[in-house]
């Protein structure tokens, strides 16, 4: 190769390298949330970047909720983003918070799911004085294992049975008040060739939810929670085994009775919203999907009546705190005051009401009212007989998580590979080495 050619090759490589490096750099210095401080005077606008896994809520937050805050706080802009889908959110946020690309404020998971991020978040105990108003059971989801509070709780999810009012009216069925009524409703629906309950048992994560909706009253809800977390009882307890037997007994009322593990979560949602199934055991988080899939659907909810032999005398509604708002510990100091102002606003009934009205979920902030009749019913049922969604609230701090064992084992139970006793023993064994945090 002659000298001219070699020079040309070197020049070409240098150009390629500079292009690649330019591609790696951030083209917009304001795009990164933890970038340089805003230049100019103190009145220069600050843009706070928020991340969430709720891709379906981007428009509600940016168009209806945060404009209210922006109007009251000139100079602060809020940019709500859902940068990745729900299933990829955890790893994206973990990487972003550990590096320098994290948002100013992030929606973070609750309970065990929060713990991996606490080193990268600001403790809020002294930043948000209003947190003391939030019920202790909800606030527990925002605590690190060090006892500090790292997030303002966002939503509360309640778990109950949805039903299609039109199908019930058509068959002259009433909302069941007793277990016998409930079984009679299921039998009547079966007799009319309507799937009584739609359940996506192919996606295992729904099964611990189903188990608590059906069996919380049978095993005793809060009383059992206290006993099992203190070590007085284990999941092998006869009452917990009996609650799993109820789950197994319900298989004949589920979609594709013999093939229930083939039905995906989204298929079950579609089955219910399209009127092919009359009931759907699920969380508040399903409501937006049902209304989107079928705006005309006439919905109602009820807590499942107490099965025979129940420890609890009343039907229970399991619930859990679903995430919270947290401040990135690496936030640009110039933005910190604005972020603290915003996160305090997120702890007010004003924000809670806006979020509840536009996102159709229960706010964790007290003092919010619900205009949607379905939400009203769910909230009233929850207030009457609250319980913790045991598997999430208490047992997601270790690996394996209790719900991951219960999910897989319940599938095996439906497939005839395990008995309720074996499932309960396996869960008990799986969590036996887990040290639960003391709050």
């Amino acid at each position, binding site marked *: *190769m002659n000298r001219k*050619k*070699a020079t040309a*090759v*070197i020049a070409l*490589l240098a150009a*390629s390298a500079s292009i690649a490096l330019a591609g790696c750099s951030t083209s917009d210095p304001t795009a990164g949330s933890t970038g340089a401080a805003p230049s100019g005077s103190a009145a220069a606008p600050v843009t706070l970047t928020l991340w969430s896994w709720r891709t379906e809520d981007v428009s509600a937050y940016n168009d209806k909720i945060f404009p209210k805050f922006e109007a009251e706080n000139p100079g602060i802009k809020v940019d709500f983003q859902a940068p990745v889908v729900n*299933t990829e959110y*955890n*790893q994206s946020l*973990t*990487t972003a*918070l*550990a590096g320098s690309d994290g948002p100013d404020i992030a929606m973070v998971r609750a309970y*065990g*799911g*929060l*713990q*991996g*991020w*606490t*080193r*990268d978040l600001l403790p809020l105990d002294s930043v948000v004085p209003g947190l003391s108003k939030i019920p202790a059971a909800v606030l527990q989801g925002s605590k690190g*294992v060090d006892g500090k509070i790292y997030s303002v709780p966002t939503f509360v999810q309640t778990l109950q049975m949805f039903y299609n009012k039109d199908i019930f009216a058509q068959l002259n069925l009433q909302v069941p008040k007793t277990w016998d009524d409930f079984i009679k409703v299921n039998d009547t629906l079966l007799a009319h060739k309507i799937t009584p309950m739609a359940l996506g*048992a*192919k*996606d*295992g*994560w729904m099964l611990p939810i189903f188990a608590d909706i059906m069996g919380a009253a049978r095993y005793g809800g809060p009383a059992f929670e206290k006993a099992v977390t203190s070590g007085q009882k284990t999941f092998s307890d006869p009452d917990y085994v009996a609650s799993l037997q109820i789950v197994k007994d319900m298989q004949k009322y589920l*979609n*594709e009775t013999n*093939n*229930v*593990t*083939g*039905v*995906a979560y989204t*298929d079950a949602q*579609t*089955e219910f919203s399209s009127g*092919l199934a009359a009931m759907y055991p699920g969380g508040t988080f399903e409501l937006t999907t049902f209304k989107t899939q079928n705006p005309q659907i006439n919905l109602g909810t009820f807590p499942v009546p107490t099965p025979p032999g129940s420890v609890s005398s009343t039907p229970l509604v399991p619930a859990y705190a679903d995430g919270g708002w947290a401040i990135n510990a690496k936030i640009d100091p110039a933005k910190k005051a604005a972020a603290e102002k915003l996160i305090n606003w997120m702890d007010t009934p004003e924000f809670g009401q806006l979020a509840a009205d536009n996102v159709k979920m229960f706010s964790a902030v007290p003092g919010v009212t619900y205009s949607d009749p379905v939400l009203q019913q769910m909230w009233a049922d929850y207030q009457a007989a609250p319980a913790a969604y045991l598997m999430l609230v208490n047992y*997601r*701090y*270790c*690996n*394996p*998580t209790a719900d*991951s*064992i219960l*999910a*897989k084992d319940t*599938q*095996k139970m439906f*497939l005839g*590979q395990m008995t309720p006793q074996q499932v309960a023993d396996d869960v008990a*064994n*799986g969590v036996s*080495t*887990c040290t639960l945090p003391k709050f």
Partner: protein
Amino acid sequence: MKTSARPRWRATGPGPGLGAGMLFLLPAAALFAVFILVPLVQAIGYSFFTWQGAHRIGFAALSNYTALFTKRPYTDEVMPALGHNLLLFAGAMVFQNSVGLVVAALLHRFNRLRRMFQTLYTLPYLVSPIVIGYLWSLLLSPLFGPVNNLLKQVGLGDLAHPWLGDPKTAIWMIALITSWQWLGFPILLFGAAMGGIAPELDEAASIDGATGRQRFFHITLPLLTPAIGTIAILTFIGAMESFPIPFAIGGSTGNPAGSTDVMSLLFYRTAFESGSGGYIGVASAIATLLFLFIFGVALVARRLMDRVERGLVR
């Protein structure tokens, strides 16, 4: 006097010089280092530490490795997941590479439509595997999927089955879907290898009275040995790293009941879905052992194939 059969690098002559050659290699080497070598070394390093989120909090020595063989959930999940990877490899060898070889042999004889069919068979390979996975999960849905509905409508309702909900069929459906997507790959490679076989060999055998079947099994197939070896090793690597299609079909937990769990899914949920999120060390140990297993098997297989190929030349 012994002479080496290997060509020796010559810095002089009509080709580019050594310096220019190295310059052209630099971009690829830099990319390899940044995107493959550095993460690889980092993952090995990560496996010797304990973590909180993405922060190293202590030295773990070999405890992340021993956890894989002594602690739940790994004691329950590692071997079944590895077994499923090997099943996917076996499935790909049968459904993908054998069918690919037959199709490539047929296309080799029909010159006119070869390009068109090669393109058609290769099309699914151009679609993202995650999309392929979701597409097939819709097609095979027991409630709304057209596959079962079609079977019912043509009077074969007894064959309708929750293909992805039955642990006995789910992993094989993943093997079939993966094979369907990658079928074009062996077709292209076998086609290219067949194109490289001197036609005189086939003609001579034909003149000697060999049938088409005899010519294929005694001339074409032995001469395809290098291609078969390469495809088998690449298939093995692909099957051991399988992630998008199992993820789209069975989620991160290998639903139903862990029957579609594979090593990459185990890695993924250990790293990102484990309790309080302090398991990057264990996940890195899984990744390291998986790499060593793939690398070791591929190395041994390559040596064996070299020996077989040398035997063919003699």
